[in-house]
């Protein structure tokens, strides 16, 4: 019999993270530690998971997502109670590019939440994982990080940084039992992307994306594109010569 899993979800109230959590508790009761900024929302999610899996333990932790000292102490606290099987770092927000250009405060917030904060969390967990030589660390990036374009390059740059960072971590842990996974969802139908839907964009369902993620993480894939078609689309876009790319209205 395998021992009980201990899973940490950072940014647990996001639609994708919520769906992943549901899949994780579906078959086996585990311990799921939910980290988020809003306590009320965390409690609502915990209640949902509890109905789905009454034997799962679901402690919730409210955290500041920018303050390095706070992040360090929250992660230390989690490890004090035992090692972690898996961490999913899922938070992010999609600002309107135009507003980022007009308002540097928003621009900074987008970079802080989408790039800086996930890196700080990942680094804090990585240190502990290295000590015990065990654990899986999955971070949600985005296909937008593959090549920046005029309609969302602030977000794209932040997500691009996640990719470079994860690359480094993967290198660092290449000879250990610690696995580091980068997830790159395409546009997904969540509250975060309602304004894309408004512009008539077709998007993947959260169920599908979460299913791909949970499966990919279980298989220990290095990079997970979801839906898979994005691997090929972005492959093409990354390799377009700049004189063609720069003429495109995307």
């Amino acid at each position, binding site marked *: 019999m395998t021992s009980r899993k201990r899973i940490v979800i950072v940014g647990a109230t996001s639609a994708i993270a919520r769906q992943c959590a549901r899949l994780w508790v579906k078959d086996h009761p585990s311990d799921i530690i939910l980290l988020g900024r809003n306590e009320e929302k965390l409690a*609502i999610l915990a209640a949902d998971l509890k*109905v*789905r899996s009454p034997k799962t333990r679901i402690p919730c932790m409210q955290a500041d997502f920018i303050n390095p000292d706070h992040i360090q102490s929250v992660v230390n606290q989690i490890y004090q109670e035992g090692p972690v099987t898996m961490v999913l770092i899922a938070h992010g927000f999609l600002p309107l590019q135009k507003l980022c250009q007009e308002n540097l405060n928003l621009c900074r917030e987008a970079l802080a939440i989408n790039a800086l904060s996930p890196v700080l969390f990942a680094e804090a967990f990585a240190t502990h994982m290295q000590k015990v030589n065990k654990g899986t660390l999955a971070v949600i990036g985005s296909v937008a990080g593959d090549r920046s374009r005029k309609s969302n390059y602030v977000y794209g740059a932040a997500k691009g940084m996640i990719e470079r960072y994860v690359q480094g971590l993967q290198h660092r842990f290449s000879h250990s039992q610690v696995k580091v996974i980068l997830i790159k969802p395409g546009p997904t139908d969540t509250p975060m992307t309602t304004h894309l839907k*408004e512009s008539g964009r077709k998007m993947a369902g959260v169920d599908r994306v979460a299913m791909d993620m949970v499966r990919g993480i279980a298989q220990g894939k290095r990079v997970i594109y979801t839906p898979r078609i994005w691997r090929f689309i972005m492959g093409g876009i990354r390799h377009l010569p700049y004189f063609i790319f720069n003429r495109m209205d995307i």
Partner: protein
Amino acid sequence: MVAVHSWGRLSNQEHRVTMLGDRSQAGTCVKNTAPGLAYGMGCSYGDACLNPQGTLWLTTNLNRFIAFDGKSGRLRCEAGVLLRDIQQLMVPRGWMLPVSPGTQLITVGGAISNDVHGKNHHVEGSFGDHIIKLSLVRTDGETIHCGPEERSEWFAATVGGVGLTGVITTAELQLRPVAGPWIHTETIPYRQLSEFIELADRSEAQWEYTVAWIDCLAKNKARGLFTRGSHVHEKECANEKPRALTPIRSFNFPVMPPFSMVNRLSLRLFNMGYYHLKKLKSGEKISHYEPFFYPLDKIHNWSRMYGRKGFFQYQSVVPRDSGYDVTRAMLKAISQSHEGSFLAILKTFGNRQSLGMLGFPAPGITLALDFPNHGARTEKLFKRLDAIVREAKGRLYLAKDARMPRAMFETGYPKFHDFMLYRDPGISSSLSRRLMGS
């Protein structure tokens, strides 16, 4: 703006869509973006879920469970939870929704606001009969908690109220205990309408579920297949092979053909084939609940087979005493028109009214038919059917309707004047504008 269609795909007009993120903020969001209309899975066939050029509040993200009491079987959840999610979670624990319509891919909020029914109406009534409580946010910012015991007039207006009294955000449901996922079913071919009635009457005492498919093209005869079922009891369940409870293996109807694949020739072939094939396989068997309750969920987007123009569903209920003659007259009119449908369903409702002011189920016989949209030709048939249903003091189902005249709505739903008192002035749909003037 996003093009949105309902299940019948009769129109594909632009809407502004706003996703309701979570229940604590739903009220504010609704208030700030009103006027609008709640939209769940878009499985209403006609225009009950549409509000072209206006706002739709998407409810599918309100999909959290809140609490479940394993002793009493009471489940509290948000209104965007799918019936499928409830079934898949609860059946292995020995609980099930007491009422299941033909698809489980609909939200709890949609099931309440259309007061959906299933094959067991004569035993369990309709969906609204099993709601203990619900909360409704109004566009003026007020939240109303109501149920059969508490502010029951609001409850009666909301059950079957096609979303016009407010946005349902949470509900508390009473589930029913079941021994397992297995249903004991029996399929019996019949060749006369009178045979169907007799079978239905005879089966109601012994069997929980009854329904019939009818070949509406068969001349002079009403041949079809009568299906009945009951839950398998605990002892018998033990003999069944344990089987994992996975979602039904389904596939997507991949393309939209330029014209309807349902035409006179294909229909005749299909109906004949279906009847004879099923007749061969008739008799008793043990079935899993999913294919028994939700046969159509196997093919996602099956409504695409009707092509770009979409299709109508016509579902009526007429009182029991005149039911036989009325149904015969309707089938005759359909047969003469050479229009017809694959999915012709005949069922008797039990002796209870929907508790909703605009609820559809009532004692009598209900007939549901799909018709490809052939424009004026189809409407001509509907006018004939309308006349027959009206004369019999019957009504049409709002969840299916896209075209009934206002006068027919008013005679079919005599409580609509009471209902109007509870409408939310900030909510309006194509259906409400067509049938209620606003």
